[in-house]
């Protein structure tokens, strides 16, 4: 029997390490003939920890939400082939997995990321072999062009074009850089790929390195992803030992090495010229383009930078052919895209779907719908650089063109579901406070413009908004976009603009009526206790500022002068007697 425990960051956070250790101890103590393995995240984060039991015929029983105290009971049942349905993954959840089309994360959750042989057994490094032994550099670039692969980091720039530009440069050495500085708060696609299938990224980089003529690869990875760094280190070591990295790979005469560079926490370093500055040990501030990195990048040499997920698609393309890849997706957006589905969603996690799938299918068929069956309000895509897709556009196909058309951006794949309880002015404020903090300060419009915009939004949420604020925000937004060098500044106003466009009436309610329709902005709400109060005193006991008075079994009252609007009384009341106005 083989037992696989999902040990991605989310699984570990849910307690998978303890599950693994319990199994390890039991197997060692009793000398059981069981092959205990680890895997990355299969994507169903809401079901973690996940344990897969394979019997000797290879039949899989997937158990979900397994705790350390339950796992030995499950193991016992699995050995006797008596696992009952209640501990297994449900049919619905399984369907949600089946509905996806997996390329970048095809191995995640299935193979052991710390064992190169499992990657090879699943076709790993055969793409690289084909490239190095049968194809010219031009043919490799052409194949990526046929596939129609576009950058998965957000901008959607054709990958072949970048590779070709770097290939045409004469200067050497050239560098192949993998951008694993996943900074969008609410996105973890790249982390899951690196933790669950690191060899795939190495193979993709080596193929790209060959195409452009680079002998050195660098992975710039967030320091906040220690597990991803550890698994990458193991993978690089194994690939070198097996001869897939290093000198004269597959006897082709092509040398390629990869090293890891840990970032130090700066959102702006996702921008390629800022990333290069950071690689050179400087403050991560963007540089003027042109010259583009393909001409003058790392140490002023030709450099190509792609995102983790882009590289993760490359081995598949060379194993199955570019034409096969281009069959997936919509007209101009080929292949699949991985999304991190989070927020107010029932079944959050990682999903990979063909480009062009309607948003509705992703949210309801795969994500299981809105948490607590609340009303769906919008989806925020592209994080602090993106925008939102409101409920009425839920049938929008998710590909680069359609998403841009409705005022959001594809981004790197963060998809945060927002329900009726969220205030869109407050959401815009949240994103802007992030970009304001992360602005590197080089361009005045970005540094100060975002601050001024944030101040206006703060004023509006405090009930001090005035006529003309929306127009001032729109003007400032245009100027920040026009006056910023890099995409951080150019896109920083997007959430504000998109939310004004789709939810203007909410802004107006804050400014004119001094009301927050979603009951979020503290300055604009009051808490009051209604007649159905039973006088149970729980609110008074929980009030941190002793603002609630009343006798047992009598209606309580909130002193508005003292109330800090923390909402505790509302949360603890069992009779829904606390009303927000």
């Amino acid at each position, binding site marked *: 029997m083989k037992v696989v425990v999902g040990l991605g*960051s*989310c699984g*570990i*956070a*849910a307690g998978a390490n303890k599950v693994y250790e319990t199994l390890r101890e039991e197997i060692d103590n009793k000398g059981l003939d069981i092959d205990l393995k680890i895997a990355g995240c299969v994507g169903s*984060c*809401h079901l*973690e920890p996940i344990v897969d039991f394979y019997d000797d015929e290879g039949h899989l029983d997937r158990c979900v939400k397994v705790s350390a105290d339950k796992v030995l009971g499950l193991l016992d049942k699995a050995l006797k082939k008596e696992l009952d349905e209640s501990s297994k993954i449900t049919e619905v959840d399984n369907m949600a997995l089946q509905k996806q089309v997996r390329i970048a994360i095809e191995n995640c959750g299935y193979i052991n990321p710390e064992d190169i042989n499992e990657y090879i057994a699943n076709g790993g490094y055969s793409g690289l072999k084909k490239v190095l032994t049968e194809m010219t550099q031009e043919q490799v670039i052409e194949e990526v062009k046929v596939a129609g692969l576009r950058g998965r980091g957000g901008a959607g720039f054709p990958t072949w074009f970048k590779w070709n530009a770097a290939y045409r440069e004469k200067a050497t050495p050239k560098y192949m850089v993998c951008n694993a500085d*996943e*900074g*969008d*708060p*609410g*996105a*973890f696609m790249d*982390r899951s790929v690196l933790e669950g299938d690191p060899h795939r990224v190495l193979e993709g980089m080596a193929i790209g390195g060959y195409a452009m003529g680079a002998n050195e690869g660098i992975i710039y990875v967030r*320091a*906040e*992803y220690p597990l991803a760094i550890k698994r990458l280190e193991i993978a690089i070591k194994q690939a070198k030992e097996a001869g897939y990295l290093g000198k004269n790979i597959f006897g082709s005469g092509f040398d390629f090495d990869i090293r890891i*560079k*840990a*970032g*130090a*926490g*700066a*959102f702006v370093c996702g921008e390629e010229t800022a990333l290069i500055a*950071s*690689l*050179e*040990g*400087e*403050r*991560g501030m963007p540089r003027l383009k042109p010259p583009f990195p393909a001409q003058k990048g790392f*140490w002023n040499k030709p450099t190509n930078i792609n995102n983790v997920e882009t590289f993760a698609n490359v081995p598949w393309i060379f194993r199955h052919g570019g034409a096969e890849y281009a069959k997936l997706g919509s007209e101009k957006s080929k292949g699949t895209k991985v999304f*991190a589905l*989070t*927020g*107010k969603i029932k079944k*959050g*996690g990682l999903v990979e779907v063909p480009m062009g799938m309607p948003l509705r299918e992703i949210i309801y068929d795969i994500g299981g719908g809105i948490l607590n069956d609340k009303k769906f309000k919008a989806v*925020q895509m592209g*994080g602090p650089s993106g925008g939102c897709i409101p409920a009425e556009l839920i049938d929008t196909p998710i590909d680069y063109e359609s998403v841009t058309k409705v005022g959001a951006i594809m981004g790197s794949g*963060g998809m*945060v*579901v*927002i329900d009726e309880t*969220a205030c869109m002015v407050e959401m815009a404020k*949240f*994103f802007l406070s*992030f970009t304001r*903090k*992360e*602005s*590197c*300060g080089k361009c005045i419009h970005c*540094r100060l413009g975002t601050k001024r915009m944030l101040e206006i939004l703060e004023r509006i949420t405090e009930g001090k908004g005035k006529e003309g604020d929306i127009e001032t925000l729109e003007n400032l937004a245009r100027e920040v976009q026009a006056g910023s060098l890099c995409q951080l500044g150019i896109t920083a106003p997007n959430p504000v603009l998109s939310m004004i466009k789709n939810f203007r009436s909410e802004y107006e309610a804050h400014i004119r009526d001094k009301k927050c329709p979603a009951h979020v902005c503290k300055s604009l709400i009051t808490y009051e206790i209604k007649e159905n109060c039973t006088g149970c005193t729980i609110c008074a006991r929980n009030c*941190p500022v002793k603002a609630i008075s009343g006798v047992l079994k009598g209606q309580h009252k909130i002193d508005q002068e003292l109330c800090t609007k*923390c*909402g505790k009384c509302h949360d603890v009341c069992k009779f829904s007697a606390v009303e927000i106005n």
Partner: protein
Amino acid sequence: MGCCGAKDLKSKFVDADVDLSLLDEVLGKYKSIKGSLITILQQAQDIYGYLPLSVLEYIAQETGVKSAQIFGVATFYAQFRLSPIGENLIMLCKGTACHVNGADKIEEAIIEELNIHDGETTEDKLFTLNNVACLGCCSLSPVMMINGETYGSLTPQKAKKILKEIKTKSLAKEAN
């Protein structure tokens, strides 16, 4: 990040009498490799827990990189700390998913329990609170990480209980 008036720049740093020789191995390995400043600073922080002024000046002296540039890099990146932290580092996720699922209420609970705000350390040096952009465990939101361990699906009550337990453990350890 923002900008930091050059006038009081040095007042932002904490000076401390630390054993600088601990850094020699790191410097020996990296000082001749171009562009290694961030790596050196990261490893220095691993050794000392933060970046004292004396360490930054020693790095400048040994690598030949101007101290202004080193201060610039040390203040630019979120990872670098310029003052010592408490025994337990709380990293509170303020990413989008956690925000939507009530991270602000968790922050209020931490403030109530420990009386520290983002970036501050408790007087008893037991806890430091750092708000971070995203821990990448969005499906467990709201989330905080304490000493590398992730605590998910938090409520204000749950967060307070966790902090109380850690405090008790830390105090018991000290008593021993």
